[in-house]
């Protein structure tokens, strides 16, 4: 399987925050979730790989080609959703579309109309009259109407109600079925990824924590519940995170067999992506 995006050794510094040696790749044919808590560096990473902010160092390749050398051609093959507020809000949907459409060499008016009808959007409506969910749908319609091979989205489901999120996720799955080569989207709402993601990349404090196949990741980790008194310093080291109450402890670990060998009576549960994410930022399991 080819990688459609390869990021290696990416560094970017702001005053009090920096991306440090960010390295990951997106395999073709996968929906990849980019997870991390607020301020972990998700948006900065996306902005940097899209050339919206200058990198200090590192290499970015889309479809096997260097981004800096082939920026325009690469952008022509990518669909972008940047979240809320990325339009001139006093324009109508049709006017904003006319601007965006002229940027792409293979804009499909037919596809755009289909998405507009699918999402019940009126081209004559002004953008500032749209709800948050409608704006997201409109952004998606724009991003998917030029035969994009890769869709990159920054927090697309943030602030949306469950129905709109479900519609959005369904659209992403259909996009992949209809020939999309990949979806890369950042989110801190990990329940969306439980439904559709194939691969997960986690970032924390500007560093990549892991890149794993979702199912393999969920199989690797376990939530462990037991009596706090049985925890020794050696056992504690086997956990990514532990929280304790007067009733016992709850921890998350990827060393399940070792933990069982020390504590055969503990309860184990399959974690959610959120459990794994919080476990890796040192939060409560």
């Amino acid at each position, binding site marked *: 399987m080819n990688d459609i995006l390869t990021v290696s050794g990416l560094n970017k510094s702001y005053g009090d925050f920096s991306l440090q040696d960010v390295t990951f790749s997106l395999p073709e044919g996968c929906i990849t979730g980019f997870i991390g808590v607020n301020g972990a560096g998700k948006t900065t990473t996306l*902005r940097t790989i*899209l*050339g*919206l*902010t*200058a990198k200090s160092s590192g290499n970015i390749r889309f479809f096997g080609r260097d981004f800096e050398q082939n*920026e*325009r*051609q690469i*952008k*022509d093959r*990518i669909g*972008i959703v*940047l*979240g809320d*507020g*990325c*339009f*001139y*809000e*006093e*324009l109508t949907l049709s*006017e904003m579309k*006319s*601007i*965006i459409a*002229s*940027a*792409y*060499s293979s804009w499909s008016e037919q596809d755009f109309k289909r998405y507009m009808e699918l999402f019940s959007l009126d081209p004559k409506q002004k953008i500032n009259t749209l709800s948050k969910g409608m704006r997201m749908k409109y952004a998606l319609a724009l991003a998917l109407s030029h035969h994009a091979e890769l869709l990159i989205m920054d927090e697309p489901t943030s602030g949306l109600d469950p129905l709109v999120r479900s519609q959005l996720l369904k659209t992403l799955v259909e996009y992949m079925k209809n020939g999309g080569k990949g979806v890369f989207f950042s989110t801190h709402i990990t329940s969306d990824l439980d439904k559709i993601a194939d691969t997960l990349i986690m970032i924390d404090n500007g560093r990549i924590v892991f890149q794993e196949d979702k199912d393999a990741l969920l199989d690797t980790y376990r939530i462990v519940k037991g009596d706090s008194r049985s925890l020794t310093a050696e056992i504690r080291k086997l956990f990514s995170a532990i929280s304790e109450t007067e009733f016992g402890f709850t921890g998350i670990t990827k060393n399940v067999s070792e933990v069982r060998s020390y504590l055969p009576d503990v309860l184990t549960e399959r974690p959610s992506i959120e459990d794994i994410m919080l476990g890796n930022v040192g939060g409560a399991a």
Partner: protein
Amino acid sequence: MMVFALLKKDFLIVKKYVLIMLLLVILIPPVMRWRTPEFTGVLGFILSVIFSVFMLLQYVSLKEYQFPKAAALLCATPFSRKAMVLSKYIFCMAVYVICCIVFKLETLMIPELGTADIKLFALMFLVTAGFIGLYLPVQYQLGYEKTKIAFMVVIMASPIILPLLLRMEGFHLDFLSMVSPYVISGGIVLLGAVFLSVSAFLSMRIYAKADLA
């Protein structure tokens, strides 16, 4: 083509001000002629160009300032940052050209407004080029708010300063009548074009390094 799509974008985001500005461009020369007959309508033309270019550019910049992510989205599409910058320059020059056409038509209909000849248009091109040539790189560097305040003071002072300048003793360009008007105009336009080119180059360099929202 991309530059023209972005030019269209600039006109679209200020579309509700365009008609008002057009009305001002039409009205300023005859009103100035009525209020200060000694300067015919030429002063009005100069002011109409300065006001319309400055005000419309301000409105465009205001909209970009209000919706910074929109520019980021455009830069994430195949639109290049160079095209984004160039479209601003072309936008200003397009406004200038419209002002010239309006004034030319007005002088044909109201001869008292003066002569709208090539020298006047060339001189005004140089003034416009000088203004946006300074304004745009400063704005790309400092941002909308800081630049607006500095230039607003200059523009508000222009109705006072301009007549004073024109009344200045020794402010004679009579020697230019010895030279062919086409040579003078060509030289002025060339000077303006060079200034604009240098300014656009600087703006592109500044914007190429800018972190977008």
